[in-house]
């Protein structure tokens, strides 16, 4: 083997080794990235319209949403997850605002940030009525705070 072919085979070898390492690292990352989530679905039914009172919003614990029902305007669903670092906000009837206990963000009745470190407004989710008459919320569909469902 002459010097030239030694060097070129060497280069091929080093390249193969490097790509092997890169591929393996990629495989490790992919292995660690979950492919199945045993998490609640993003779209779900929350019950019949009649289950929800007028006025005060209903807080759904598992889904972390507030369901608003207004005699005139209809249904709207707000996320209860603070946009800052994910704590659950509480809706205070006294000032009709959402308060986050973690770092003090305050959101107005429409979800807009009034105070604190939250970078953006609370999300509002699409709510529709299925054929069996139940309400269905889809967390993948973000809607403007003016969105309402009349039933």
């Amino acid at each position: 083997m002459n010097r030239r072919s030694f060097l070129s085979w060497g280069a091929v070898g080093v390249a193969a080794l490097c790509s092997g390492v890169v591929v393996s690292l990629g495989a490790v990352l992919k292995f660690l990235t979950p492919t199945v989530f045993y998490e609640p679905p993003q779209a779900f039914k929350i019950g019949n319209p009649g289950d929800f009172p007028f006025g005060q919003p209903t807080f759904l614990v598992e889904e972390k949403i507030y369901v608003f029902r207004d005699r005139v305007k209809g249904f709207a669903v707000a996320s209860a997850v603070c946009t800052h670092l994910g704590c659950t906000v509480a809706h205070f009837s006294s000032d009709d605002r959402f308060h986050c206990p973690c770092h003090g963000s305050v959101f107005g009745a429409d979800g807009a940030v009034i105070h604190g470190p939250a970078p953006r407004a609370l999300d509002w989710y699409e709510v529709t009525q299925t054929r069996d008459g139940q309400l269905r919320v889809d967390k993948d569909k973000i809607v403007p705070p003016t969105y309402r469902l009349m039933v």
Partner: protein
Amino acid sequence: MNIFQEIWKSIVRRDPLSTDKGKSELVFMNVWLHIHPAKVKKENMKFTHSFYLGFITFFLFIILVTTGIALMAYYRPYPPHAYQDMKDLQFVVFMGPFLRNMHRWAAHGMVICVFLHMCRVFYTGSYKKPRQFNWVIGVFLLLLTLGMSFTGYLMPWDQLAYWAITVGTNIGSYAPIVGGQLRELLLGGHTVGEAALLRFYVLHVALLPAVLILFTIVHFWRVRKDGGLSRPLWKLKKKTPPQLVTIGAPAEVAALQTVPASTTKTYGLMEVVTGKPIFETIAPEEADEEVFSYPYAFVREAVTLMATVTTIMTISLFFNAPLEELANPAKTPNPAKAPWYFLGLQELVSHSALLGGVVIPGLMVVALLLIPYIDRNPSRHLRDRKWALWIFTIFVVANLILIVIGTFFRGPGWALVPPWVHVTGGVE
């Protein structure tokens, strides 16, 4: 020779400890002790030089490993069970509370001591040549210690744990580009749930301790190879060049040879055993300042170990590790606070998540890592290091102030509430 003597001789092959040869053989014929030199400089063992903080940190880690393994006998890392098992440990398992307390208080202690150790190393200028890289390894040890604490924090699966981890991992998701994926990788999902608890458990009991041990080995090895601890500041003044001194008789084979004097070599007694001529390269006035590691250094280390264990045990007798109610994803406690050593971070985050949660801590870590390479001033004398001392002191004090504010001055809704004002619950 009777059988017992024979067995003893097969285990302990060194000369009796009454001889100098036995004292040095004890050190380098023993795999655990040979990280020490056979002889150490007397003044390097002075308490006021190192405060033994590195040792204390290490001993706290040993306590954490032993009590942690004990706790593993009862702990199952699945959401409903994890909390139950904590309750069992707290109320029914024999010595359960004591072991849990020891584990918890040693963890807090380790965070405190690793930080103080870093301060000691900084103020004595011990990160300077040739120890620059050992400082870098030290910074990784600091980060690993914080990582161990953070992952351990989730284990009880109570309200405190759940929300501290929710907030903590959300901080990570503000990192540009990789943030979201990083969080998903860490949590094994999108929220803190079963998958997250399992992954944190794996990190806490397997991956992070393994890496921490590897780094610690390198850390210790380098302390040894850098010639032991740096000299105490009060010993810096006079600098005598090392001289060649013969302190032993040559064996019959070789004529007296001379070897070049080394400025860093602190060992030389190896030759006693190999039978070669003994040449020690030490400055004459240092000769009487060196003592055998056995018993001088070992006794001090053993006392430090016992003091550390006793302190943690005493604290664990009187103070219980907190355990709040079962984690409830729907109800964020008000105020929700991270563990105290992250409250400075939380305080920053309450002003801006990106700046306070990612940019500033990131810059702090980079700055810490680069200290030995930025500070090129070779002098270790305090009077020559005004700038360095000021900057580092401001860094330390700023961190402490943020932690104190986060701990004592933040009430419901993260509002500024002085500790002497009593608030009951939020505004409802």
